[in-house]
């Protein structure tokens, strides 16, 4: 059951992040004041793919809620971060981000850390 929950969380997270990154770059620079949050909510309402991304976040969130009740936070958090590799690859090939050697190396170090924390 715990790995099924992890799989659901990972798939939903990947979709949520890809859609949100794509749409937010298009929406332009946002702020985090009260007014900025209101504008963000309006942006979610106006952009269908962004709304879909937020729905994916909701799926991931409820999966996570169920997971933290069964497992310690120090397992649940790193295990649900398996989306990491998939998202970085999709960032390069779908979002056309430039992944320098330094960024790739740092990401790989973080990933090893996440695996150690989860193991």
């Amino acid at each position: 059951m715990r790995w099924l929950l992890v799989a659901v969380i990972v798939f939903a997270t990947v979709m949520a992040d890809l859609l949100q990154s794509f749409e937010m770059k298009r929406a332009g620079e946002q702020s985090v004041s009260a007014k900025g949050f209101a504008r963000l909510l309006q942006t979610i309402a106006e952009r269908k793919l962004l709304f879909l991304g937020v729905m994916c976040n909701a799926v991931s969130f409820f999966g996570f809620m169920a997971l933290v009740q069964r497992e310690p936070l120090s397992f649940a958090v790193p295990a649900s971060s398996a989306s990491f590799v998939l998202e970085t690859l999709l960032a390069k090939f779908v979002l056309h981000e430039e992944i320098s050697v330094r960024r790739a190396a740092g990401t790989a170090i973080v990933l090893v850390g996440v695996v150690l924390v989860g193991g």
Partner: protein
Amino acid sequence: MKTVGVLLLFLGLKAGGNSFMAWGMKHVPERVSMNPVLYIHAMANPFVALGIFALALSLLTRMALFSLADLSFVLPVTAIGYVFAVLIGKLFLAESVSGQRWMGTLLIFLGAVLVGTTRRNTTGSGDTAE
């Protein structure tokens, strides 16, 4: 600098939200699964409700971060949140943390710092400062 401020706000909201939720969920008697009513019951717990509020704000803050920086930048630098999760789990929720987990935590921190020195936005408008 704006990116760093938004990043710190996100990390604070996420760590606080996760901790309140984990604390609250451990005190909810029923196990949540496929039944939505059980989730609503769980949300009646004030710690769970506070956790959800903080996590909702963290979601909006992360979206603002996506408007400023690449996905492949945001992912590793926000992984610093796992470091906070391990520390909070250890200090406030009395979860045991092995030597291996501490080593992983250190690597996450170092990798995130390394990614943090790369160009934040390689595809569009926003904060492109090194």
